[in-house]
């Protein structure tokens, strides 16, 4: 369970800032830091096992039938990334505590940050690719929130949108790719996939899967040509840039490539795509970084370049290259996160991010200068810092790779990176001091300590790489490549390796480049460059407009048209299905026709047709529809469905009452305006659908079910299993109780919606004055009606109670009982008006709905106490001396919930309408 707990810890931590923010930001920060630190400690607790070459796993079957398991796995590679995520995460939390302004919603920031941390940790700990996908998308979402944190800035919103669109689109491609991978292997578990190298690479689907997965990895890790979102993501607060866009999230793509390295790498396709993309990204981004002036833009392009470097190494497919890649992940995370934090410090101190306007900060900010110098030199790859070691390993790998263009490009990229690093440092800290608006000074230790810790690591791992990092590189590389490995990282390899000479060339070239910088800058400024943002915006606008045009074609605001189109589609599909499939012959015998039902059906058809032809007279049409409903309920009784008959007749009464109330406002007639052609068209459509439906119904009734219906089980189990003789009721409250539970909630929500709409209406000015017809009816509340309804109410309630109590064994139940009660109350409304009735109502209808749902829920939860699943019912026989032996089922309690909910919902809806109908004062 421990790994799942570790993955859950940041998410739990994400909940705390809302509670702790009132105690101040230090407490809030410390609280989430405790969660992160606990996760880190729990990870480290597994260290001995991992060092021994084992992997720690946790397996939770989630949806095993879909292959979706919450399987977690901690091996060398996930260990490395977990340490980065949690370790740097702690430093970022401390830094953010001092970085963000007091006026900013700090708790929200921490919550986003922890959400991201959890998602990222989930990616690296997942042992199931479907689970990994979930976390992958979560990182995209949480990074969207973090980049757009300063949502008042347009750049922040646009950068967030661009990052989400790009990484989200890549994520979609990756979903497809991973699905293909799972399909080839027959399992979505990473451990199973990683052991199937031969099968995957022999599959014809290997190349599509590879391309799709790499699309996901390249968009996430900002590889060319998907690098454009990362510089725009720099609109985020600096702690976010330091955390997501240097140390962790952008490395998720690298992690995925490393994770799938054993099964995907080693083929020419892998080599050319990955190495090519990495090399181009590395050189191209380094060149752009040289010509950027914004502190964070330089660092962003530098990050892109370094990500390209690691991608390049992973693409080479050799074990030594993988070792170098892993080592550079560590080095880059340390120096780049430190540099971002230092850039944030400079920005804080001077409010300037353009390095041309900066300078001379070495005097005003000596601590920052010292730290920045070390981190920048590490970025440039100057000995004896860790960046030098990994860069030399990279050059060594490149030197041994054909064709010549690879080492050449790698050398040029390295050269450029030295150049931009030196430019970054000299422009910011050296040179003359311009006149600053506020005298800059070093920040509080809270801001410079976190980068300082990283800088110490940069120096230490540079001076003593073997004792400090070799163990981590070894286990991570072994987990990546699937074979044990012993890295040999050293500052000095002698005079032989080509990397030494390349490094020298790099430094020499960089100095020359900086010497020629003004000339180069003029050329750069003069050359036209494709603007990624403009292209992105244009394609986004194009897509939106295409969608708008399409929607306008389909939905021009005419509901009748949309409905006709939908009907036509359904009809076409139906006819197609009918013609393309075989059908069985009808084997059932016709049921003989009796006189009474024949008359009933004739009446029903007449009433329906009359309602349609006379629909302009609305009151008449409504009454005719009511007749249809009444005949239908008689029909249900005839066709062995007494429960349906009861329900239908009760619903009919309340429905007609409701519609009458509504008709009180609406015009009483429909004007004749429809063109004859349109009428004919509508009639043709309606008749075709009607005939098709009748034919379908007839065909269905004449055939036996192909599979035996489940109801045999319901009938057999009704008495022994559910303790009721009425099979319909036992299905509603027991066998399919969950359905009913959902349905009463829907009904309650519908009633609340009606209430809300009415409240809204009562608060607005009406464009149309309601039709007041009170005068037409003479006395609105005749005394005779009032007296009769008072008598009817207790009788209705008695009938309702009776129906409710016998419902489990005889026709009846909560639904009908609720409706009968409602009818009794509605009569009071009709006879005495809303005011009179509302004044005598003690329980509000909302409370009734709520109580109903609560009673039903409590019954459901009650079965947990008996150790059974939700809504398992139980019953017992009770004997009270004067009464017959009767059963007491928990299902009856559930039915009580149904009763309350139905009663409350019906009454709330009618009461809302009645309140509208009341004459409004001052309107």
């Amino acid at each position, binding site marked *: 369970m421990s790994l799942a707990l570790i993955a859950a810890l940041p998410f739990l931590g994400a909940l705390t800032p809302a509670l702790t923010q009132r105690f101040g930001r230090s407490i809030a920060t410390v609280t989430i830091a405790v969660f992160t630190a606990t996760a880190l400690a729990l990870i480290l607790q597994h260290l001995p096992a991992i060092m021994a070459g084992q992997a720690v796993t946790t397996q939770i079957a989630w949806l095993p039938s879909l292959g979706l398991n919450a399987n977690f796995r901690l091996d060398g590679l996930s260990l490395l990334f977990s340490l980065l995520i949690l370790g740097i995460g702690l430093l970022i939390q401390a830094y953010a505590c001092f970085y963000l302004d007091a006026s900013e919603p700090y708790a929200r920031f921490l919550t986003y940050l922890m959400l991201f941390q959890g998602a990222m940790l989930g990616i690296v700990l997942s042992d199931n690719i479907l689970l990994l996908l979930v976390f992958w998308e979560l990182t995209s979402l949480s990074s969207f929130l973090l980049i757009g944190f300063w949502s008042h800035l347009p750049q922040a919103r646009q950068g967030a949108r661009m990052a989400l669109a790009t990484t989200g689109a890549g994520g979609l491609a990756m979903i497809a790719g991973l699905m293909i991978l799972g399909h080839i292997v027959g399992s979505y578990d990473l451990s199973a996939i990683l052991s199937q190298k031969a099968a995957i690479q022999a599959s014809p689907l290997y190349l599509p899967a590879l391309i799709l997965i790499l699309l996901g990895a390249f968009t996430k890790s900002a590889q060319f040509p998907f690098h454009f979102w990362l510089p725009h993501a720099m609109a985020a607060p600096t702690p976010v840039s330091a955390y997501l866009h240097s140390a962790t999230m952008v490395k998720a793509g690298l992690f995925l490539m490393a994770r799938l390295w054993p099964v995907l790498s080693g083929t020419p396709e892998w080599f050319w795509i990955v190495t090519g993309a990495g090399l181009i990204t590395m050189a191209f981004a380094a060149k752009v970084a040289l010509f950027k002036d914004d502190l964070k833009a330089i660092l962003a392009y530098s990050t892109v370049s370094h990500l390209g470097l690691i991608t390049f190494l992973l693409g080479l497919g050799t074990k030594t290259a993988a070792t170098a890649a892993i080592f550079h992940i560590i080095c880059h995370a340390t120096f780049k996160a430190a540099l971002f934090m230092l850039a944030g410090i400079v920005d804080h101190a001077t409010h300037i991010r353009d390095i041309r306007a900066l300078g001379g900060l070495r005097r005003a900010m000596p601590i920052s200068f010292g730290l920045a110098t070390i981190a920048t030199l590490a970025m440039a790859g100057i000995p004896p810092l860790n960046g030098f070691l990994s860069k030399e390993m990279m050059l060594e790998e490149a030197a041994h790779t054909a064709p010549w263009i690879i080492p050449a490009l790698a050398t040029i990229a390295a050269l450029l990176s030295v150049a931009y690093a030196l430019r970054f440092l000299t422009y910011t800290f050296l040179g003359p001091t311009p006149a600053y608006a506020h005298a800059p000074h070093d920040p509080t230790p809270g801001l410079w300590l976190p980068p300082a810790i990283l800088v110490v690591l940069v120096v230490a791992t540079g001076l003593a790489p073997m004792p400090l990092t070799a163990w981590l590189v070894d286990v991570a590389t072994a987990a990546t490549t699937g074979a044990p490995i012993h890295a040999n990282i050293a500052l000095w390899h002698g005079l032989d390796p080509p990397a030494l000479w390349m490094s020298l060339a790099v430094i020499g070239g960089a100095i020359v480049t900086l010497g020629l910088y003004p000339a180069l800058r003029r050329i750069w400024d003069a050359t036209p460059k494709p603007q990624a943002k403009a292209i992105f915006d244009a394609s986004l606008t194009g897509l939106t407009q295409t969608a708008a045009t399409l929607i306008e074609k389909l939905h021009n605001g005419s509901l*009748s048209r949309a409905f006709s189109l939908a009907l036509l589609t359904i009809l076409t599909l139906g006819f197609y299905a009918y013609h393309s499939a075989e059908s069985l012959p009808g084997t059932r015998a016709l*049921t003989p026709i009796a006189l009474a039902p024949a008359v009933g059906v004739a009446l029903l058809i007449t009433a*329906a047709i009359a309602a349609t032809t006379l629909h302009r007279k609305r009151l008449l049409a409504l009454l005719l529809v009511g007749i*249809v409903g009444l005949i239908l309920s008689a029909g249900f009784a005839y066709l062995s469905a007494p429960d349906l008959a009861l329900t239908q007749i009760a619903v009919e009464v309340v*429905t007609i009452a409701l519609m009458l109330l*509504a008709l009180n406002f*609406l015009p009483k007639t429909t004007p004749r305006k429809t063109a004859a052609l349109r009428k004919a068209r509508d009639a043709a459509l309606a008749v075709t659908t009607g005939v098709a439906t009748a034919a379908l119904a007839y065909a269905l009734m004449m055939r036996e079910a192909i599979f035996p219906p489940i109801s045999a089980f319901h009938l057999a189990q009704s008495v022994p299993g559910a303790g009721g003789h009425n099979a319909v009721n036992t299905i*509603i409250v027991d066998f399919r109780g969950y359905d009913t539970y959902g349905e009463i909630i829907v009904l309650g929500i519908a009633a609340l919606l009606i209430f809300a709409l009415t409240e809204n209406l009562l608060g607005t000015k009406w464009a149309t004055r309601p039709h007041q017809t009170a005068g037409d009816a003479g006395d609105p509340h005749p005394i005779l009606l009032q007296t009769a309804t008072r008598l009817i109410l207790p009788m209705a309630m008695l009938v309702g109670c009776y129906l409710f109590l016998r419902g489990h064994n005889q026709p009846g139940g909560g639904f009908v009982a609720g409706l009968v009660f409602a009818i009794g109350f509605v009569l009071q409304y009709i006879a005495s008006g809303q005011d009179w009735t509302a004044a005598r109502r003690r329980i509000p209808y909302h409370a009734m709905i709520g109580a109903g749902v609560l009673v039903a829920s409590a019954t459901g939860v009650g079965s947990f106490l008996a150790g059974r699943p939700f809504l398992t019912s139980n019953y017992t026989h009770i004997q009270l001396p004067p009464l017959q032996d009767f059963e007491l089922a928990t299902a009856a309690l559930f039915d009580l919930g149904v009763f309350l909910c139905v009663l409350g919902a019906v009454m709330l809806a009618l009461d809302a309408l009645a309140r509208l109908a009341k004459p409004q004062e001052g309107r």
Partner: protein
Amino acid sequence: MEILIASAIGTLTTCGIYLMLRARTFPVILGLSLLSYAVNLFLFISGRIKLNAPPIIGSGAYTDPLPQALVLTAIVISFGMTAVLVIMALGAYLTAGHDRIDLYADKEKAIKASARIRGHESDSRAEDQP
């Protein structure tokens, strides 16, 4: 009997759909009621027709109880749906001053409205530019 019920279903469907294709709210609501009847009846007869066999245990012969249970809840839910529609229709009538269901009665208005929406969108985009 089957023929009678099938024709009842067919008639209810035809009338329901014809009314739902009208351009005013009240006929549409009536049409929806008729169509609900048709749908409920259709669902119900998927258990086939069996006379004098209510699914009350003890009587010997039973019809299929499951469609009945489904239709029972469907009847109650369709009341909720009708009620929501009625209040929406009422609100639309009271606030808009007419009870047409179509958003735009004539084409010109529709074009104008969509142009307004477009214009609004491009405004907000312009605002987005740094």
